[in-house]
């Protein structure tokens, strides 16, 4: 197995080099010059060149590329942000992931739990009325834009609810964990975005899990179990769920890396200072160090979790061989 892991890691080195290359090229080659962003309003002819030098943009592309690679390799996150002078990329990183995880982790857990339950109910009643209704609801839910959920969710969850209840239950936007303690802070600022993210993801996940379970239910062991005289419920919830766990866990594992970037839109709309919001801000500010570092870190997590998924998969399912 170790052999496999090492091989996978080695194989991913060119991929990683490619990711950084792609990203840096996208930002630099043929695009508008970011140095203009940092010119004062009454610039002199020499200023542009000076800024390019200070930002290191005057160096050839490949030099910049290897320079950044070296920074990533040596875990040097001390570069100063271009958009927010006086802050290093590392500092921004270390504060930004907290709000993000506070939204994404509960969101993932709640979505997985609810949608597995719903999928079980659906699969249990396969072809019957309940199943149809649930699946129609899932398709309908998938066909509405994420943004509509956010806009409407904010209107009813924050504006209207406050009118009805009389006090502020969910904040319109923002993020403040200090004022009233962690729990109430989370409920005020994070709960509504989490609820919205759950509603949005439900349709997709329920359909997926149902498909997994329906497929499992046609397998031989199910027939055997039934033949043995096990109750239908027991077959569904014990035998099937156990076997369906593999695709379920794989699905959850593959979403793990995305927890770091968070839901860009939710963070943007609810003004939560997480990774996604930061990244958007950095793109608007042409803050290359931040864009590059955030994406580079995401890519590492992504690759590692891919490998981990495969390894876990093999550990759980002896039929899978690592090659």
């Amino acid at each position: 197995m170790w052999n496999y892991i090492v091989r996978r890691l080695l194989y991913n080195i060119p991929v990683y080099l490619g990711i950084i290359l792609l990203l840096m090229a996208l930002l630099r080659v043929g695009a508008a010059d970011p140095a203009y962003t940092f010119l004062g309003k009454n610039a002199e002819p020499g200023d542009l060149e000076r800024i390019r030098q200070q930002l290191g943009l005057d160096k050839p592309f490949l030099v910049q590329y290897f320079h950044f690679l070296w920074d990533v390799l040596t875990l040097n996150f001390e570069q100063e942000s271009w958009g927010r002078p006086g802050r290093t990329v590392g500092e921004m990183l270390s504060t930004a992931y907290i709000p993000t995880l506070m939204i994404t982790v509960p969101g993932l857990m709640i979505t997985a739990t609810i949608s597995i339950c719903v999928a079980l109910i659906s699969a249990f009643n396969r072809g019957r009325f309940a199943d149809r209704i649930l699946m129609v609801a899932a398709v309908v839910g998938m066909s509405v834009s994420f943004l509509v959920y956010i806009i409407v969710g904010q209107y009813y969850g924050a504006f209207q609810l406050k009118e009805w209840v009389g006090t502020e239950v969910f904040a319109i936007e923002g993020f403040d964990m200090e004022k009233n303690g962690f729990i109430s802070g989370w409920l005020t600022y994070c709960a509504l975005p989490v609820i919205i993210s759950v509603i949005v993801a439900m349709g997709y996940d329920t359909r997926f899990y149902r498909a997994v379970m329906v497929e499992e239910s046609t397998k031989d062991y199910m027939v055997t179990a039934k033949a043995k005289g096990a109750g239908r419920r027991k077959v569904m919830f014990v035998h099937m769920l156990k076997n369906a766990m593999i695709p379920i866990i794989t699905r959850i594992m593959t979403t793990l890396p995305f927890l770091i970037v968070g839901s860009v839109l939710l963070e943007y709309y609810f003004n939560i200072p997480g990774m996604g919001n930061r990244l958007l801000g950095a793109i608007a500010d042409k803050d290359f160090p931040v864009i590059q570092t955030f994406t580079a870190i995401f890519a590492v997590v992504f690759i590692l979790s891919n490998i981990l998924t495969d390894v876990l998969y093999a550990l759980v399912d002896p039929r899978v061989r690592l090659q």
Partner: protein
Amino acid sequence: MKPKFLRSRGAKKFFRSRIATFSLVVIGIYAMIGSAVLFFDVISVDDTLQRVGPDSTPMFGEQSLEKRLRDVDFQLARLDTALNKKPEDVEPAIAELALAERTISTKPREELSAEIERAWVSYDTLAEQKDEVEFEAFDAKKAELKESGVEDREEIQRIAGNAADASVAELVASEEFVSSLAQLEQIVDDLYAPLTGWSAKLYDLRRSMGTDRQGRSIAIRAIFSIKIALQIGVVTALLSVIFGSLLGAAGAFYGGWIDHLVVWLYSTFSSIPSLIFLIVISYRFIGTEFESSLFPVYVAFCLTFWIGPCRIVRGEVLKIKELEYVQAATAVGFGKFYILLKHVVPNTMHLMFINFSLLFIGAIKSEVILSFLGLGVKNQPSWGIMIRDSAPEVVNGFFPQLGAATVFMFILVISFNILSDALQDAFDPKHVS
């Protein structure tokens, strides 16, 4: 000759599904409207910018009386300004006031002025009446509370304010007020030339879903956006499917370094979160000459969307490659490229269709998100832009624009969702998700 897959069992199964056929019909209708806009210019960009009425009029149902009062104010004020311009400017200014088909009446200008004067007087009476009632009720309640010994300032403000609001509501709902407002609206209506026939129908259509904050027709904008959605969907889904499938098929079929290259390419592209990738690509086009076209959107979507079909087709071709007929064709001595095009690619056609359908949905949804961030469609309306514009309206409780864009989009997307499901069931029953 019909392509092979149309004669296949899967195709028969697909067409047996009634709901799938129905969704195809819906998509067909959208396609027709979209092409009518695209090729025959049924609705131009100018149409989508045109003012067709006062701002923020709702889709259906009664408007609040206050809003009606404001609309009267708006209509009178603009005509008043036009009539008060320098004599030589009056005619063109009045011509500009036309709300699409609805033009200002050709009555003599003096008559119009006189009517407006009359309307102002009755408007001001109504408005004053409202103010008076409000302040009276407020002061009375305040005095009453103070007398009864309520100290809390906030409390007094609140109770007295509620009392004032209640009496205003009472006044506004009173028969007298309603009928004077109706009279006033009649005067405003008379300022315009009466509409008949087709132009009346057309004007009704324009107003059918209400107007946005600039008084533009929501219906026209939503219909125009069909064009944009189809344009983006067709171009990006088609290109990505063709490009991705060919790449995947070639990689799997030729193997060796080509396959390594293909796998490397899609691993690289898929390791950047797709939304971030989309945003970075669209952002880099800002300030270039392509900026105001749809080109950046096409490029961004194609660069992200090709990964899916590439991966799936590659997997499928790896299986097909081992099949006997391909082996046989190789043994007979057909060229590799010939086999690829003639025997391998056609057998992945169903996957391409499924992917096209899925990517189409992806394109429409991503357009909304990009436009919302100000990076998508420019210089013309789209559902994304409508949803973006509706965000501040929704906060103030105004839903028509959001509703129209959502419903138009919803119908198209759900049709494609059903279509993809049906395609999957028919051609690829074992495939999960």
